[in-house]
């Protein structure tokens, strides 16, 4: 239904305070969502985030190993990333984002919410359009 709550949940989960008001109003830089809601014509829409591919094109494209696979989860080491955007070029889902932090850039992506059993976007989805399962 395109409510966008998954985006809010993602921002809050990856904020310092994990508080919705603080995350949106006080934190700088404000965390940006690591997912996207695509909207087409005739009301079609869906929420999309990294699929954590088994043989990920993004990791193959990364020039210096900033993207890596950790127990099946594709992660980005933001302190190693050089913002060359080879991952943006490679991801067939368009699920790696350019992020600016204090004047320098790095890529940013879904990390499946470490420490949570179910990612925040899935938990908040009001009509259970998002499902968390292994395929």
């Amino acid at each position, binding site marked *: 239904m395109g409510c966008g709550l998954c985006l809010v949940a993602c921002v809050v989960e990856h904020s310092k305070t994990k508080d919705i008001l603080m995350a949106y109003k006080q934190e700088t830089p404000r965390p940006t969502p690591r997912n996207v809601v*695509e*909207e*087409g014509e005739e009301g*079609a*829409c*869906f929420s*999309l985030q990294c*699929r*954590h*591919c*088994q*043989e*990920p*094109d*993004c*990791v*193959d*494209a990364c*020039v*210096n*190993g*900033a993207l890596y696979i950790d127990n099946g989860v594709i992660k980005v080491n933001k302190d*190693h990333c*050089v*913002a*060359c*955007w*080879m*991952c*943006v*070029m*490679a*991801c*067939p*889902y*368009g699920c*790696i*984002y*350019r992020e600016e932090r204090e004047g320098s850039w790095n890529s940013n992506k879904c990390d499946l919410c470490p420490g949570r059993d179910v990612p925040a976007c899935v938990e908040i989805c009001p009509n259970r359009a998002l499902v968390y399962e292994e*395929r």
Partner: protein
Amino acid sequence: MRYVIIGNSAAGVHAVEEIRKRDGEGEIVMFSREPYLAYSRPLITEFLFDGVPVRKMSYRDASFYRDNRVDLRLGVEVVEIDREKKEVLDSRGERTPYDKLLIATGGTPFVPPIKGGDRGGIFTMMTWDSAKAVKERLPKTKRAVVLGGGLIGMKTAEGIYEAGVPTTVVELAPQILGRILDRRGAEIFQDYLEKKGMEIITGDTVEEVVGESEVEAVRLRSGRVLECDLLIVAIGVVPNMDLAKKAGLQVNRGIVVNERMQTSDPDIYAAGDVAEAFDIVVKEKRVNAIWPVANRQGRIAGANMAGGEKVFTGEFPKNSLKLLGLEMISMGLVDSPDDSCQVITRDEGERYVYRKFIFKDGHVLGGIFVGEIDKAGIVTGMIKNGVRMNGNRERLLYGPPQLIYLDEEYREEKLTRPVVS
């Protein structure tokens, strides 16, 4: 089982990882004629002006070699492959037997014979050592000329320019970046770079290097003379396949491999910039000397060397490039090969934004994104997966591409099936 890997860059490193996933016992010996742990070759031009800290140039640190128990022989070059005895001879005169061998020797810059080409101050850019040599010279360089306006040439020109040295690029073709941009895209980049102060000369080349012992100027084919005290030659890269040739392996423009990355000798594999493998856009074998392809081929070779069954389904050119702050991404073809293709473009070159897509029989064969690059990978995925796109094509020209523009069938496939990539 003893695996021998010649080359310690993208392909070699990924072969190690795949071998170890399948074989914890076998011995892995890795040769590199360079003295460094694996580093990011695409970042060496950043080194010229400290564009990224040296620690970010590291591709794998010492723990990688330790954890994977790699017997790493740095600064040692393999000089001969003896297929009869199944051993390699190295530059120290030592022989190392192999059961499975991987040739991941990459490429070397091609330097044509140029009159006066033996003067000092002429360099190529392919290795960290070459970048160190150039960087060392920069403080006493008043003006630099880069011969070749391809990817390496332009990134080198950027590095030298950013280090504060006036730089001129000389490119023989009518446009720069001919492999990754069409004429218009290149024009937009050239305009941007010239406004920043870089000089770019197209349709001309260096015919003579002038100078006593060191380069003092270059004379172009047009007769024009450019004073300079540093010349970078970056007109192309050729695969390092002398070893393979001498060993009698089948070679063409690269070492010929099958879909398992096996050469004409089933115990010898090749991967990366040295290998010639299937390109799904032009539908023939060719060398796609780009980082992501080297990684994938290395993984496939490594897996198969250790008894796995992985198949290379083909690749195609795909690049992301940033020059003095202007960003671009392109994939597949950049020019329409014939009239049977449909081409759509959006040209806002005056603000350095440009897009172009090439379609044939409902499939996208190529795309260019200049200036606005978000989610460009969706188009890369469309080429890779041979997705048909009939409606909504114009939408690719504006805003980030979306999966929702594509046929429902493809979306279902991509979003609900197990994901390989």
